[in-house]
């Protein structure tokens, strides 16, 4: 079995796709920066936000929003790689991939690893740019956040894979934007702390607390401050397992794609 060459080949393809689509990299960088430098400016909170863990003292809104924007980079990237799979299917290159003798789950894992690595690179590019604008995290956080980013990337990548197995056509991707990305992003702790949500609506707060994206963001937020959030980790692991299982089921040759196509 040639497991590792398959991994490298698929990752290389992901990397090539990423490098060749310079607009994609720039947009992946510009999108969170617009939020950070424009949206956050409107909510600047010069007088400081109340203290919530992991923060030990008062912070400005720019500082609060950074982990959420890291999550956003990964969310968009996860969906983008799902889009590329739908594209692959339409172009026929997926059939080529799936005819490989290697097990389906390994191929999907390779794809997932590739897209996660790409999104981690994007997050670091974003953090570096934010730091250039004076919005910095504790030094240890930049290292501690790596495992958190890996997990969050895997979870959102798995979600993208699961979705791609159910999306038949490229045109339907707009639906993914409306029904997955936006609700996931806005109904989370990325833009506002959960206690703030609880003030306006208990129901919205509960939805936010259930949203796995909230936990991915919190995992990143705590890691950026060199701290560990067990609850968020558990949520992210469970969600990754569920999304991963869905993706496997969706791509299962017996009942998934191939049979439907046949």
């Amino acid at each position: 079995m040639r497991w590792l060459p398959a991994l490298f080949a698929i990752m290389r393809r992901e990397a090539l796709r990423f490098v060749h689509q310079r607009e994609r990299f720039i947009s992946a960088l510009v999108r969170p920066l617009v939020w950070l430098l424009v949206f956050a400016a409107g909510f600047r909170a010069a007088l400081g936000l109340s203290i919530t863990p992991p923060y030990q003292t008062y912070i400005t809104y720019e500082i609060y929003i950074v982990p959420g924007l890291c999550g956003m980079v990964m969310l968009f990237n996860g969906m983008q790689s799902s889009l590329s799979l739908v594209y692959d299917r339409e172009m026929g290159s997926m059939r080529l991939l799936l005819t490989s003798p290697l097990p389906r789950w390994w191929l999907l894992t390779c794809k997932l690893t590739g897209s996660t690595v790409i999104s981690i690179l994007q997050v670091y590019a974003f953090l570096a740019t934010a730091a250039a604008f004076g919005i910095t995290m504790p030094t240890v956080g930049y290292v501690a956040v790596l495992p958190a980013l890996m997990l969050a990337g895997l979870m959102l990548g798995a979600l993208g894979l699961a979705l791609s197995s159910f999306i038949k056509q490229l045109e339907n991707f707009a639906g993914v934007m409306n029904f997955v990305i936006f609700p996931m992003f806005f109904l989370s702790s990325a833009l506002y702390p959960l206690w703030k949500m609880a003030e306006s609506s208990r129901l919205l707060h509960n939805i936010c607390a259930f949203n796995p994206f909230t936990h991915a963001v919190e995992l990143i937020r705590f890691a950026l401050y060199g701290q560990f959030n067990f609850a968020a980790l558990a949520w992210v692991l469970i969600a990754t397992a569920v999304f991963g299982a869905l993706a496997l089921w969706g791509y299962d040759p017996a009942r998934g794609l191939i049979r439907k196509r046949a």
Partner: protein
Amino acid sequence: MLRHTALALILSVSPAFADEIWVSNEKDDTISVIDIETMEVVRTIDVGERPRGITFSQDYSVLYVCASDSDTVQVIDPETGEVLHELPSGEDPEQFVLHPDNRHLYIANEDDAITTVVDTQTRKVVAQIDVGIEPEGMAVSPDGEIAITTSETTNMAHWIDTKTQELFANTLVDSRPRHAEFVRDGSELWVSAEIGGTITVFDRETQAEKAKINFEVEGVHPDRVQPVGFELTEGDTHAFVALGPANHVAVVNAETYEVEDYILVGRRVWHMDFNADRSLLFTTNGVSGDVTVIDVAKREPLKSIKVGRFPWGAAFRPTN
């Protein structure tokens, strides 16, 4: 991790050897004692009504507390937290300063437009000096020759000759002066004005205005920028100035009188004190009821520690 373990070990062996910051809680009638190593409140001591100004004697054997609504200055044993006795203070004592002789307290009586001088050994009032309306800020020059009272409503700094206990000069400052300090071995007097939003620097010899420091916090309305307490770093190179409801502490270059930085702290920051080597600064944040710890070298807030309601004054106490 290793550092934490070492720290925990030291603390468990000698818990009494960490330096402390004592904070008066105006609304709770208590004092919160913060352990500087763990940055946690380790003791809460009941005192008189509305404690505001607090200061230790030079050898740290007693603590003096202005219990404003009890109309007295309490003398407290810092080891036991017990009130040893009370000093006559005149009505509504708010701030005070201990003379370098370690014996005389100069107390501002907010309601009476008087500065009271009390001998802490005989426990008697030595003098009462008429000053402007609502006296508040108090300072004594390092050589002990001059005492200063600032009056909130008259908007003046009153210069008192400590030998005769009489006023020898009055200088106008901006609206509502709150705090005064002698700087650079007593050659300069700094006075903060809460409503005026400035600090005025006077030359001690001529009592003439030497400079004026202005503050401007981005995104905060100028009305909220209200300088109150301030402290100077080692060597008097920089001043850290509490800006009240602007929720920031300004870092002022004491040579050029320019503001170099603003540090975000809790709500309505009032007074402050340093640790032993002046590497950490502890600010009292009245409305949010906490104390923010600032890394002086990095000019970054490290942590905010919950204390009682409306923390007002802060005083450092070494324990080793």
